[in-house]
């Protein structure tokens, strides 16, 4: 419940303040979005599985963002940035789909 409220509060804050994304941060925005979605779905599924843990949730989100950003940063420096960013999005996207399927099984028993 708190989580849902915090999520909505975050969205509202972002929409109200509309901070300008600096140019150097722009390539990492899609990664951050996918990692954030992955954290949300992963946490929701763990909650439904009954194994949710706040520490794991926060740390997995932060580390996912950092590792993904690091991979893309290295890729940018080596000239394969867009490819690696695609790879990150694909991997996290598959996870999101899997978690969404698990959530669906929990909710609809189907």
């Amino acid at each position, binding site marked *: 419940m708190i989580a849902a409220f*915090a999520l909505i509060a975050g969205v509202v804050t972002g929409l109200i303040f509309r901070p300008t994304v600096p140019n150097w941060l722009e390539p990492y925005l899609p990664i951050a979005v996918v990692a954030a979605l992955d954290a949300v779905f992963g946490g929701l599924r763990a909650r439904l599985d009954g194994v949710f843990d706040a520490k794991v949730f926060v740390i997995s989100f932060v580390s996912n963002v950092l590792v993904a950003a690091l991979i893309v940063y290295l890729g940018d420096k080596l000239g394969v940035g867009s490819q690696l960013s695609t790879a990150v999005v694909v991997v996290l996207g598959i996870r999101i789909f899997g978690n969404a399927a698990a959530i669906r099984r929990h909710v609809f028993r189907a």
Partner: protein
Amino acid sequence: MVEGTSTHEVREPAVAKLLVDLVMDPRDPGYEAAALRRGDAPSNRWWDAPAVALGCLVVGFTLAVAYAHTNRSAPEAAKVHAALVNRVRSAEKDGTSLAKSAQSLSNKLNAVRNAALSDSSVLARSLGTAQLEAGAVAVKGPGLTVTLKDPAAATSVAPNGSRANSINADHVITDRDVRSVVNELWADGAEAIAVNGIRLTPTSAIRFAGDAVLVDFQPISSPYTIDALGNADNLATGFAESDVASRYATLQSAKNIGFSFDEHSKLSLPASPTVALRYAHVRTEPPSNHSSGAHK
């Protein structure tokens, strides 16, 4: 060969397992491990709820920022485009006003020069002829006006608001047509010619770039009005009998282009603002009092 297949068989399951794990069991293993460590006892750390709240806050904030950023870049691009258009428009306006002031200054110069030179002198007359031939002065007199127009249907706006972009359908009349009419008029004895109000000089070029006809690098569009000064009757007769006229008369009935020519007793053509020396320099100290000539 045998070795190759054997290593393949060893490796393949590992790769496949990675993918299968990813697809079949995407849950972060950290949750399992934490649950095992914790056992059945419910968590009672005081910072659990704030941590989750903070995490969710950051997640929501990230999503909202990404949304705002994506939706803002589109209007920003439009803003940049509008700013560029404004700059082009103001530069065009500046160019027009500069051309106008150059025109009035050169008119003043001509008036002063004419006053200085006596009207009957040979020098004044030869200067006048040279200026007329160079298109450096505005002129008026009788003449012929030839009008070429793209087919009306082709230039109409398409239903979706954008003009059809095919040269065949849209721009039937090109630089070649304008040029052939101009050349025919010169051949028929025209003394000065202007196309859509742009005076032709001996160095004028009529060209085609993209979808526009360029006269001295200024784009013009249909209808193309070609004003020629000269003996109106001779011009009209010569032009009417020419191959050029008969070609466009044929095209008028076949392709529906607009083509007409009329005699006028009074036409006035502007001076060309583009008369400029490119290689020759005017001497700053006059060697003799009547020389304003150029040397290499």
